[in-house]
């Protein structure tokens, strides 16, 4: 994988340092001004456009967004798994103070799983179909130079299995012998096997039924608590976010447009997109008119000038068309990228 980090930029908005007043105590992970683009035949698609956030110890941070908002690209960029034609253009990813983007490929390989683990979307695709679960765990350990004696291996594997709510003997099964929920638990077992400080969960239950989803989330929350890891939960389901994260970042067109404690986001959304998104959610309390957000997300190939949400925004003014708002502190603990948070229209 190639890695380019440019230190300067001609992009006007880049000269302003992102507002770092969202001080997160004991930040485990600190992402600053991350830019990722994909080179396509039609031109450059900027999938992640200057994203900054910090993740506190034992914190669960949600990143919610629609398809194409860049949320999964962030996950892959943090793990440095962006493949050509994608490229991390610039930014910093500080994990326990160390910049991951400056590491060699060999060093990075050791960071993955041991410090930064991933639970990906669709468990069926992330397990090797011709290896028993147990061998996949041992494989991961070997790759990280963890050497254990036979009895220790058995003991640790059965402990891991129990921790994620599987039976010890399930480790001897092949992935196809497990149900979807069990597979996703096996993936969680692998992810926590080296006690990482950060777990990235990218739509961990999107392929599962609601009942199983509930169980897998129970497991995830429990193991997170036990090993004291921080979690970045990536997804599109606002309900899941409301129920499982501490802080929520709302993404739109490759940018975080609002980053606040989850209760505040739902009680009093400050960005117009967040507000419309929450209003569009179907409710179980009462039947009412379903309100979608008019218009469509912008093509990332030709970004609109100014604020990316401006073409769909009911509050947009001339300022929004000319100047992109920066994510900045608008209320205590609340970061919003909008010119009109304090304007009542």
């Amino acid at each position: 994988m190639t890695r380019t980090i440019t230190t300067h930029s001609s992009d006007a908005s880049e000269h302003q340092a992102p507002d770092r007043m969202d001080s997160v105590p004991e930040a485990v992970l600190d992402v600053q001004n991350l830019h990722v683009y994909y080179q396509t035949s039609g031109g450059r698609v900027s999938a992640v456009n200057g994203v900054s956030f910090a993740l506190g110890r034992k914190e669960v941070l949600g990143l919610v967004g629609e398809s194409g908002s860049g949320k999964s690209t962030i996950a892959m960029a943090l793990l440095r798994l962006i493949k050509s034609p994608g490229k991390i253009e610039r930014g910093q990813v500080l994990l326990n103070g160390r910049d991951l983007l400056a590491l060699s490929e060999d060093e990075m390989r050791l960071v993955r799983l041991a410090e930064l683990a991933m639970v990906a979307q669709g468990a069926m695709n992330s397990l090797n179909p011709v290896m028993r679960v147990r061998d996949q765990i041992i494989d991961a350990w070997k790759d990280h130079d963890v050497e254990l004696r036979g009895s220790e291996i058995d003991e640790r594997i059965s402990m891991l299995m129990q921790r994620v709510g599987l039976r010890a003997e399930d480790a001897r099964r092949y992935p196809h012998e497990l149900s979807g929920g069990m597979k996703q638990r096996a993936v969680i077992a692998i992810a926590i096997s080296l006690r990482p400080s950060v777990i990235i969960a990218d739509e961990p239950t999107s392929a599962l039924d609601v009942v199983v989803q509930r169980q897998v989330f129970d497991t995830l929350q429990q193991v997170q608590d036990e090993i004291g890891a921080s979690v970045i939960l990536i997804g599109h389901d606002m309900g899941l976010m409301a129920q499982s994260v501490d802080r929520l970042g709302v993404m739109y067109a490759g940018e975080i447009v609002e980053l606040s404690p989850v209760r505040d986001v739902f009680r009093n959304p400050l960005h117009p997109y967040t507000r419309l998104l929450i209003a569009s959610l179907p409710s179980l309390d009462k039947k009412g008119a379903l309100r979608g957000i008019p218009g469509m997300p912008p093509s990332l190939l030709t970004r609109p000038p100014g604020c990316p949400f401006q073409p769909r925004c009911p509050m947009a003014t001339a300022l929004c068309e000319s100047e992109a708002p920066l994510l900045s502190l608008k209320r205590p603990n609340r970061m919003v990228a909008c010119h009109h948070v304090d304007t009542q229209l």
Partner: protein
Amino acid sequence: MTALLEAVQITKTFGGGIFQAPATLAVDNFSLRIEGEPPAITAVVGESGSGKTTLARLLLGEIAPTSGAVHYLGKDLTKLSRKERKAFRRDVQVIFQDPYEVYNPFYTVDHVLTMPARKFGLSKSKSETSESIRQALTAVGLRPDETLGRYPHQLSGGQRQRLMVARALLIQPRVIIADEPVSMVDASLRATILDNLKSLTREFGVSILYITHDLVTAYQISDNIIVLYRGSIAEAGHAEPVVQQPQHPYTQLLMHSIPLPDPDRTWPREQQSSEIGKLATNFAGCKFARRCPHAMDVCLERHPALFQTGPDRVSACYLYQDSPELTARSIDAVFATSEAGPGPVTN
């Protein structure tokens, strides 16, 4: 009155040949009448493996039931004449889950609109066709100029799915079977498409069978809900009571599992299944017994009948065995018609 579309005790099993694993019962003795007049939206809710997509394919005549029959205007689907078959193909339309796979990438999207217009002789002239196409597109919130003449890959998933709704509108069917029409669409567009479907019923008098895994959207747009569990009806009735006071333990489990978009409402933990249910192996009783927190001895003996627990609902659970068994031939006896009342008669 002859129902427009009727499933008469249909059962569908897959597999189960001599050298294969035991047969899977995908749909188990299911009956439903879709009158079409007055129109209504009925949701079929179930998890993966509940048989909901098999049910859709049976009703569309894509696959034949192992036993029982699907009737269109009182006639078995497999015995329709050429002419009747064409009428069936027009009256009963489908909207699939994946808006990416239904298009032929070599044709512009106009093709999916002009083809049925020609095939069914919907209009007399080219200009009339193009006028009704433009109307249908506008009705689902697409701008004709930005949509027509494009290739499928130039449209987003949400646009393609709305185009399918526009197509259904153009053909003016009497029933639409919509199989997870919004599960691949983003939240902000989901509401718009569901609203499009609702207005098809309200304004054009089309009945809709909305097949989904999502109780929340089912509640929002449907008049009635059928909850399927492994091929059998667990609970059915008016949407309001089924969702607000679910009776069947499976519906209750589904309701509790939904993560609500409100941080102040906690996500309740799963209830433990009862000892009786957990210990049970190989029994012919209720399919849900093994996971059920209320399982009793009787649940292991035979599958419960549909008990009519109210004028507007039925529940297949022995907790309600004091209620009378449903005597009607199919569950729509307890269903409501669209809240908006019958729409203006089309055609």
